[in-house]
């Protein structure tokens, strides 16, 4: 092909860790349109009460999506995050109930969360189980453990100050949202400014290339699955703080919401593509449609159909653009 290097770089994945400006701008436009439309059609939507509720709801999925994003960039997947949300909520609640201070129980819970992720990393790297199956197994094991530990009952009567973490505001902004945004900045830093982030993208384009370029796969795989699980554990703690109890059935199918947020945001399950801003906007769009749909009295089942269609349209458009770029 004559001088194909003079053709325009393919959108999105050209620059490492760089947000696909096209995709991000489109997503941002969708968010704005949604907000304007819902503000005009629903009296409740623009109220501070609803907006802060929306931000809290989004934060849980948004945090999990940031961890999932890093895994997906390495061309992996983590199906165990929803189960980690549940076990983090239960383990932390059980410790609190036993009188452990939350300043001790929360760090311990996060360590347990990260350990589950490292377990995934071991299955994937050492045993060579594909990420899908490895994390599916972990999901099932962890769900079982949650039920055993909790006796399938909710763990309630938690100290008041624990509940205040999620319900509190800082300068009128929900603290959960602030935690999410802090994590967003951490993730942007990791992906765009650190060697670790470079490694994730390189591993995502080819493990063999990564290895022959001197990247140690073991530590990187442990780290990425550890991070994903750590983020999920944090989300689980926040969720149980918000509910003021540990709920054994919490987080069911949260992994799918997180994957959806990442792919709507331009991530690719083939790896080496995706951005933190995209995942954040993807999560906001999904939750806004849910929230707005409820306010407008749309059947929640119909909403599910809409969100499903949204995922397909978002990914379909991306694929279409790529193919057209290839066909010339």
């Amino acid at each position, binding site marked *: *092909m*004559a*001088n*194909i*290097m*003079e*053709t*325009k*770089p*393919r959108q999105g*994945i*050209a*620059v*490492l860790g*760089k947000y696909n400006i096209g995709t991000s701008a489109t997503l941002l436009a969708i968010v704005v349109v949604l907000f304007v439309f819902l503000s005009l059609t629903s009296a409740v939507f623009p109220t501070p009460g609803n907006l802060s509720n929306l931000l809290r709801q989004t934060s849980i999925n948004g945090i999990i999506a940031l961890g999932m994003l890093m895994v997906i960039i390495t061309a992996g997947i983590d199906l165990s995050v929803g189960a980690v949300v549940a076990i983090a909520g239960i383990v932390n609640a059980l410790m609190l109930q036993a009188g452990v201070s939350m300043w001790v129980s929360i760090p311990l819970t996060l360590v347990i969360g990260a350990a589950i992720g490292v377990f995934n990393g071991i299955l994937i790297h050492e045993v060579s189980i594909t990420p899908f199956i490895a994390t599916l197994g972990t999901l099932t094991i962890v769900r079982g453990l949650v039920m055993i530990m909790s006796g399938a009952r909710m763990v309630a009567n938690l100290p008041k100050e624990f509940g205040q973490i999620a319900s509190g505001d800082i300068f009128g902004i929900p603290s959960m949202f602030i935690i999410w945004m802090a994590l967003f900045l951490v993730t942007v830093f990791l992906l765009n*400014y*650190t*060697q*670790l*982030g*470079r*490694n994730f*993208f*390189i591993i995502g*384009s*080819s493990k*063999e*290339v*990564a*290895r*022959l*370029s*001197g*990247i*140690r796969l073991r530590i990187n795989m442990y780290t990425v699955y550890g991070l994903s699980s750590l983020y999920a554990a944090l989300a689980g703690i926040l969720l149980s703080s918000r509910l003021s109890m540990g709920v054994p059935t919490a987080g069911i199918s949260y992994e799918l919401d997180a994957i959806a947020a990442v792919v709507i945001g331009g991530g690719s399950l083939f790896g*080496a*593509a995706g951005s933190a801003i995209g995942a954040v906007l993807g999560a906001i769009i999904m939750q806004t449609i849910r929230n707005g749909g409820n306010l407008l009295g749309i059947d929640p089942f119909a909403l599910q159909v809409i969100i499903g269609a949204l995922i397909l349209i978002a990914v379909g458009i991306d694929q279409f653009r790529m193919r057209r770029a290839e*066909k*010339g």
Partner: protein
Amino acid sequence: MAELIAARGISKAFPGVRALDQVDFVLRPGEVHALVGENGAGKSTLIKILMGVYRRDAGTLSIKGRDVHDFSPQAAQACGMAAVYQDISLARSLTVGENFFLGHMPTTGWGIVDWAKAYEQCGRLLGELGLDDIDPRATLSSLSVAKQEMVAIAKPVFENADILVFDEPTALLASEETEILFSIIRRLRDEGKGIVYISHRLEEIFAICDSVTVLKDGRHVRTMPVSDTNPDELVRLMVGRSMEDMYTIRRSPPGEVALKVEGLTREPRFRDIGFDVHHGEIFGLFGLVGSGRTEIMRAIFGADPVERGEIRLDGRPVRFTHPSQAIAAGIGFMSEDRKNQSIALPLSVRTNINLANYPAISPFGVVNRTAEREAARTYIDRLAIKTPSDAVAIRNLSGGNQQKVVLGKNLASKSRILVCDEPTIGVDVGAKSEIYKIFEKLTEEGVAILLVSSYLPEIMGLADRILVIYEGRQMGIVERSAFDEERLVRLASGLQA
């Protein structure tokens, strides 16, 4: 029906570039027609238009006398056209036989597959083509790359295609398999079929082709009978330079021993390999595909384990268990499989140049982005890598420029010993000579180069000494003064020189 393919005035533009400009191409029955030109001359674009992969912007195309307007790969197949591309596009987890029939397995009625018949037909054709060592029941992925390529070549013969396109078919083949390929092509020609043959290896064109079309910068330069031309003229038409000086590089006086290998063994791949490479030397490693040369290089680099033996770098014994240690010790590695082993295709040129450099420019794990950009700029300039910017995904670059990025990657990580496994595979003549010039500069700077090549003119032109490998055995080290094509081939075939 005088013409199988008649393409006239074909033009095709991609955003920002005119890939083909008013190109004519005619293929007649019983003709082997070579298509030559540098990478970027428009060969691939022309083939893809002929095969219905791309739409042409202008021009007329008629296949077997019928004008075609809206062409597609399916329509091309229906016209009896088949293309064998460089990267083997077969189903790797299926058997050879299944790949032959792909979707059209013979049945016994009731839709039940007649396996015995399928394998018998497949086996018979393989036998006829001289490929009786390929078991039709073998899973494709269990075969060597060269054998897989032979299956890919045999498949269109089996399908009875009468217009066949071979795009760099010999890139992965050893000389005996190349001979089989040539006999297949002669047989097809004698049956009155038309063959388009693309290769960077000019001697193949003179061995097998009847006519040749030269493309340059998207334009048709000349079409002529092969008997009316010679390699020098072809190269001149392609690039405007003669082949004579291509392999003539300035030799540097060898310095101290950079790398010493003794008794290196990894059964059953190779055993008792021993040699030393000096700073400023180009040390060749010659052997057929599958002889173990790549495995030896990978073992030195720490990519594969070593059973026994000793490796010394500048006199110090080393034993690498991971490529990262080899890179840190100053060894660079250019793999023969660029796309799967050397570069991260979806990522930017900048990232790819720094691929092995990040540990050095990331204090406390934080990438120094100024240094990152600096390294990219340095090597884009120094190696004259043609790219609109360092932010472009490397998959958008031509093969030659990708390979220069791989060189840049190894230079950025300060390699003092460079292992180059088939460094010019899939690289056009122009970029080839640029890569040789870079080698020349590197040896002047005292870099030791281990050059693996199955291409004799290249390895004989460049290397100071050549180690010949046959089935994992070291057949001898030949000094430059004793270089002789026949002798090297005899050694590589397991015969004594």
